[in-house]
C-alpha cells in the first residue's frame, strides 16, 4: 500500500490520519474522566489477572485479551445509557466490563462457575449480561453485527431512544454478514453505532492483505452512513466520536461507523507470541498506552494528580482480587442442570 511508504511506522501514519479537532472544553468533567480511568483500570488489571491465572492455574478454555484496546470499549460505552445495547466479539472482556458487567460475574464465568454471568455455560467468548444491556460477546467473527441491528430494530420500535452498539474487528469487516447488516441498518435508519476495532491484524493476517482500501471507515459512504477513523488509544477522542454517533442514532437519524485504530499488546489468543508483528511496532503502540495517556491529560489539565490515579489503581486492584477470590470460592456448575438451559 502506497501510504505505508510515506511513513516510517504504522503508528506515525495513524497519528497523522486520525488527528481530529477535539473540543477540549467539554471533556473537562473530572467525574467522567475518573470514571473512564477506573473502567480502563478494571479492564487492564482484570485482563492481567486472567493472563496469570491462565498461565499458572487451571482456568479452562481460551482467552482473547483486550490489553491495549481499553480506550475503545471505555470511550464508546461511556457515551451509552444503561438501557442501551451492546453486542461484542470473541475479544469481548473489555466490552462486557465497560458496559457494566461486574468483575465478580466476569471472573466467575472465566472460572466456569455457576455464579458466572453466563452461568458457566458461555465462557470467555460467550459472555452475556442482559441486565446491563450487554447482549453478548459472540464467538463467530462478525455475527454480532446483525444481532446489533436486531436490537436497534427493537429500540426503534420501542420508541424510548435506546441505541445499539455493535463491536467488530478489522477481520470481521470482510464477513458477508457485516455488509448485509450495515446496508440494512442504513436502509431502515436503525439507531445503531458500528464500532470497528482495527488492531491491524486478524490473527496473523495484516489488514492490508485483507482489504483493498485503506480504512474500514471508507466503506461507510458505500453503505449510506457517516464514517470516521479515530485514534483508538485516546479514550477522549473515542468518546468524542461516540457521543456524536450515539446522539445521531437517538435522534432517529440512523447508523454510523466509527473505526478505532488500536493495538493488542498481547497475541491473538492465549500465550500466542505474535511473531508476525515487528517488535518495534509493538513498542510504538505501547508507548501510546491509553491509561498513561489519560493520566497525563488529567495531570496536565490540573484535574487530578498522579497520586489520585495511583489510589484509584489500588482500589481496582483490590476489587479484582476480591472478584478472583469470589470466583474461586463459587460453586461449580451442576451438569445435570444443563439440559434445562437449552429451551425456555
Amino acid at each position: 500500500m502506497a501510504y505505508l511508504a510515506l511513513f516510517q511506522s504504522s503508528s506515525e501514519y495513524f497519528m497523522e490520519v486520525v488527528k481530529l479537532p477535539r473540543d477540549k472544553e467539554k471533556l473537562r468533567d473530572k467525574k467522567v474522566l475518573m470514571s473512564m480511568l477506573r473502567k480502563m483500570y478494571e479492564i487492564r488489571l482484570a485482563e492481567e489477572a486472567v493472563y496469570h491465572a491462565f498461565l499458572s492455574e487451571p482456568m479452562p478454555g481460551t482467552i482473547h485479551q483486550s490489553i491495549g484496546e481499553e480506550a475503545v470499549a471505555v470511550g464508546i460505552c461511556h457515551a451509552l445509557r444503561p438501557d442501551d445495547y451492546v453486542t461484542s466479539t470473541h475479544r469481548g472482556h473489555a466490552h462486557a466490563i465497560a458496559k457494566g458487567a461486574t468483575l465478580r460475574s466476569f471472573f466467575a464465568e472465566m472460572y466456569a462457575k455457576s455464579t458466572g454471568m453466563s452461568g458457566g455455560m458461555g465462557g470467555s467468548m460467550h459472555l452475556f449480561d442482559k441486565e446491563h444491556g450487554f447482549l453478548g460477546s459472540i464467538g463467530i467473527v462478525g455475527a454480532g453485527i446483525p444481532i446489533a441491528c436486531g436490537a436497534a430494530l427493537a429500540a426503534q420500535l420501542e420508541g424510548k431512544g435506546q441505541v445499539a452498539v455493535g463491536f467488530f474487528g478489522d477481520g470481521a469487516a470482510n464477513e458477508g454478514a457485516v455488509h448485509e447488516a450495515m446496508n440494512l441498518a442504513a436502509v431502515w435508519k436503525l439507531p445503531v453505532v458500528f464500532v470497528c476495532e482495527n488492531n491491524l491484524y486478524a490473527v496473523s493476517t495484516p489488514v492490508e492483505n485483507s482489504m483493498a482500501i485503506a480504512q474500514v471507515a471508507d466503506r461507510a459512504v458505500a453503505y449510506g452512513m457517516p464514517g470516521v477513523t479515530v485514534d483508538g488509544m485516546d479514550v477522549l477522542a473515542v468518546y468524542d466520536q461516540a457521543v456524536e454517533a450515539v446522539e445521531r442514532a437517538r435522534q432517529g437519524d440512523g447508523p454510523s461507523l466509527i473505526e478505532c485504530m488500536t493495538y493488542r499488546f498481547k497475541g491473538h489468543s492465549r500465550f500466542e507470541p505474535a511473531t508476525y508483528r515487528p517488535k518495534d511496532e509493538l513498542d510504538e503502540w505501547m508507548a501510546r498506552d491509553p491509561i498513561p495517556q489519560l493520566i497525563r491529560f488529567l495531570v496536565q489539565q490540573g484535574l487530578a494528580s498522579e497520586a489520585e490515579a495511583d489510589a484509584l489503581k489500588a482500589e481496582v486492584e483490590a476489587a479484582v482480587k476480591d472478584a478472583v477470590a469470589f470466583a474461586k470460592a463459587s460453586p461449580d456448575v451442576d451438569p445435570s442442570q444443563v439440559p434445562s438451559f437449552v429451551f425456555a
Partner: protein
Amino acid sequence: MRNITMAEAINEAIREEMHRDPRVILFGEDVGAFGGPFMVTKGIFDEFGPHRVRDTPISESAIIGCAVGAAVAGWRPIAELQYSDFITCGFDQLVNQAAKIRLMSGGKISVPMVLRAPIGARVRGAQHDQCPEAWCVHTPGLKVAIPSTAYDAKGLLKAAIRDDNPVVFFEHKLLYGNRSASAADKAVPGELALQDAAGPEVPEGEYVVPLGVAAVRREGNDVTVVATALMVHKALEAAGQLQETEISVEIIDPRTLVPLDKETILRSVRKTGRALVVTEETRTASCAAEISAMISEEAFDYLDAPVVRLCTMDMPLPFAPLAQKAVIPDAPAIRQAITNLMAR
C-alpha cells in the same frame, strides 16, 4: 367452520397473533405490500403498517440476525425466507446464534423468534426444491414445525409465535393451495399438481395446536406410516388404494419434528409391529432416518420387520418433471413399500 387454504390459514395466524401481541412483527423479502411470492402475507402490511411489517433487502444473514437481536431485546419477530433453500445464506445466525444463545447465556436470555420458510419440490430445480428440515432438527436449540393441513398450519404457527424459543416453521409450497397467484404457482401435471390442503376445516374462533403433539391421520392395524407435509397426503392416497387388499394402514403425522411426539409414534408401532417412515427429504441423515432409528431403538421388541425409510433419492433435485417424479416418493411408491413391508 370454513374450508380455507393453508396459505390463508397462515395469514390468519399471523394477523391474529399480531393483534393479540403488539410485539409480534413480520419481515422478509417481498412480504409487505406485495404480500409474498406465495401470497401468504397478503394484506398484512395494509392492516399493520410499515413499522411492524417490513420488506428487507436480499440479506438472509441480516434477516435472521435481526430476528435474533429483536427477540433477545424483547420483541417477537416472524422472519420469512422466500425459499428454505436460502437458509444456507443466513445459516450462522440460525444455528450458531439463535439456537445457542439461551444455553450460552446460562438460560438467562431467550430468543422468541419464528423463521418461516417454504419447502418442497415444484419443478424449479435443485436450489429451489429442497426439504432441508434435517439441518434444523440436527441443531439443538431449535424447534421445528411442519404442518400438513390448513388447520394445523394455523394452530402450530400460533403456538410457534407464542413459544419463547426459536422455531423454524416449514410450509410445503404445494400445500399452500392458493391458485390466485397463478404466476408463482403454475400447476404441474401428474403427482406434483398443486393441492388444496386436505384435512379438518378451520374453526372461526381461537385455537392453538401445541408443538410436540402428533396427529393420527388414519387408524389402522397392520402398518404404521410416519409421514410429514406433502407425504401425509401421498400416504393417505396410498392407504386408500390399499383398502381392497385389506392392508390396514395407520398414518401418523408428527406435525412437529422438534420436539418430536415419540409416544404417539411408538404407541402405533407397538400396535402394528411394522413401520415405514416417508418424507420428501433426501434419504441419508434425514429426519426420517432419525425417526427410524428412534423406533428401532425404543420399540424393537414390538417389531416384526425392520423399520424402512422411503425418501427422495440422494441427489440434488433434477429439473425435468419426469426425473423429479422418478426420485421423489409418490402414492404408488408408498403403496409398494407398504406391500413389501407386509410381505416380510
